[in-house]
């Protein structure tokens, strides 16, 4: 049984880990920094070069990594309950493909040179358009939000967007091609405080609301008839939670590109360690996702320095073995 005291201990521990990994992540990079450099930079007493690196580059990047990890983990956990599918993740309904289509279109047509906000804006719009299209397709096929129809519609719309992305890339020049492909691999390079704000607002709203629906998600994972009989207004809750999880995924993709694996694996890791009750799963997954992505981004910057690895490659390379260990422990 999970007691309130053990829950508080767990959240404190995870918050502490997040703080530690964030501090470490701010220190490492092309220029190594000591803790006193960082404190001086935050207090404004360091030289301007250090200040720019710490306050203008490192901290927003680390904060953005944390927010992305939290957003993807919450989004994935929500999709898994709504679709009653353990393989569900934030991109399963075509969010990433739609975002990629938007971003690639902007790159190939050279719009990205107009403003740094063009790519996030196009990616976000593409992601939301894909979700709306998926819902439309699912509604044509069935009366209500049937999870199997939704999954099929997600696959179909995703395939369509991917085809369109390849079509655009066929006609792209070498430079656009390269930047488009790198965008699709996900990166937190170029993170600014504006990016942070762009993700923080939807993240705060969605996580507070979704936490309120944690018990509904528990019941929806058991089954819709059960949920309805126990008092869940099923259709309303499903639409709202789908919308919030999709906006979270879309916002994360818009600011960081497609970072796979976090949204799939983090909720499962929480389940394996602490069980599936969404009242504790959602906050735990948010914290664990944040820690994981902060650490992964720090590693991506340093492991093969000066070359920066695509963070999506790292999340999978590190995440898979860790997950296998967790699975094994479960069997014992």
């Amino acid at each position, binding site marked *: *049984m999970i007691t309130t005291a053990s829950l508080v201990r767990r959240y404190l521990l995870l918050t502490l880990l997040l703080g530690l990994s964030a501090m470490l992540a701010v220190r490492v990079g092309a220029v190594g920094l000591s803790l006193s450099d960082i404190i001086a930079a935050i207090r404004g007493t360091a030289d301007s070069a250090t200040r720019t690196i710490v306050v203008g580059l490192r901290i927003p990047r680390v904060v953005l990594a944390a927010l992305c990890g939290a957003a993807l983990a919450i989004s994935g956990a929500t999709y898994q309950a709504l679709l009653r599918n353990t393989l569900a993740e934030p991109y399963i309904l075509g969010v990433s493909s739609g975002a990629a289509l938007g971003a690639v279109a902007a790159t190939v047509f050279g719009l990205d040179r107009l403003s740094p906000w063009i790519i996030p804006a196009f990616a976000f719009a593409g992601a939301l358009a894909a979700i709306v299209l998926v819902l439309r397709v699912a509604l044509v096929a069935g009366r209500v939000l049937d999870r199997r129809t939704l999954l099929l519609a997600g696959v179909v719309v995703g395939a369509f967007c991917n085809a369109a992305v390849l079509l655009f890339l066929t006609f792209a020049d070498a430079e656009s091609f390269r930047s488009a492909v790198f965008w699709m691999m996900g990166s937190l390079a170029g993170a600014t405080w504006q990016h942070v704000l762009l993700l923080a607002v939807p993240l705060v709203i969605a996580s507070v609301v979704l936490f*309120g629906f944690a018990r509904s998600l*528990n*019941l929806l994972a*058991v089954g819709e008839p059960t949920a309805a*009989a126990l008092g869940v*207004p099923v259709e309303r809750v499903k639409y709202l939670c789908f919308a919030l999880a999709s906006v979270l995924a879309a916002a994360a993709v818009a600011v960081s590109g497609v970072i796979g694996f976090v949204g799939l694996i983090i909720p499962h890791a929480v389940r394996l360690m602490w*069980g*599936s009750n969404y009242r504790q799963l959602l906050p735990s997954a948010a914290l664990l996702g944040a820690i994981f992505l902060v650490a992964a981004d720090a590693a991506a910057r340093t492991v093969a320095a000066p070359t920066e690895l695509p963070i999506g490659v790292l999340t999978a390379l590190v995440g898979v073995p860790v997950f296998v260990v967790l699975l094994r422990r479960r069997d014992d």
Partner: protein
Amino acid sequence: MTDVAWQVERVSFRHPGASRDAVRDVTCKLAGGGVTAILGPNGAGKSTFVRLLIGLAAPTSGIVQFHGRSLGSWTRGTIAREIGFVPQGEESVFPMSVREVVAMGRYPHLGPWRAETEEDRRLVRHALEDVDAFPFADRPFSTLSGGEQQRVRIARALAQHGSALVLDEPTAGLDVRHEIELFALLRGLASYGRTVVLVTHNLSLASRLADRVLLFSEGELVAHGDTAAVLTGERLTRVYGWPIDVVRHPGPGEEAGRPLVVPRLTAPVEAPRP
């Protein structure tokens, strides 16, 4: 308890796009307290009728009242606080402990952001004790046997803390012993004043343990009332399209004289086909 729990008036239900009513023009009263069994062949409309009783389906025509108020005007939450429900065949995709499953029964009593109170935990504990599931409260639900799982689902419905309990084929897939134990558990719950309504295919157990029965055939309620009065060999033979005898239980004890339903092994040539 002799007050009326459900009052069903001229209720029909047709699935969208279907060519005939799944439930046709049913009128009946279900008394509060005791055990009521809903019987009938496959496809007779039993499960649909149960969905109407708990407001999961809205009647195409007619009205379903629970304690004098039309279910159509209730929110899902209000219904869930009044009527506990054990659905047929459900399976969570994620692992849950027994206690977590039962705690879900408190859902209709909890606001979105509210944490469970001591009172909620107490009711969950009581529900676990009522079905003798307390000893394995912290085990994973998926490791329980079919009979234990069903008892835990009943505990979840008890944690809803309503006056009535509705079960859709609660003993499907259980062996004889677990089936009878479950029926005995439901009888026990009814003896404390709860209204228990269940769908079952086990005619012989229903005839011995239910106070009242509703007999459905092709969407229509063909007979309802006192178990011994409704369950006659001639009526069951007609409804099930198979020769069925009803004899009196030879005893011992409280079962003596109750109807005992015995289907024949071979159908006579003139048996009517459904």
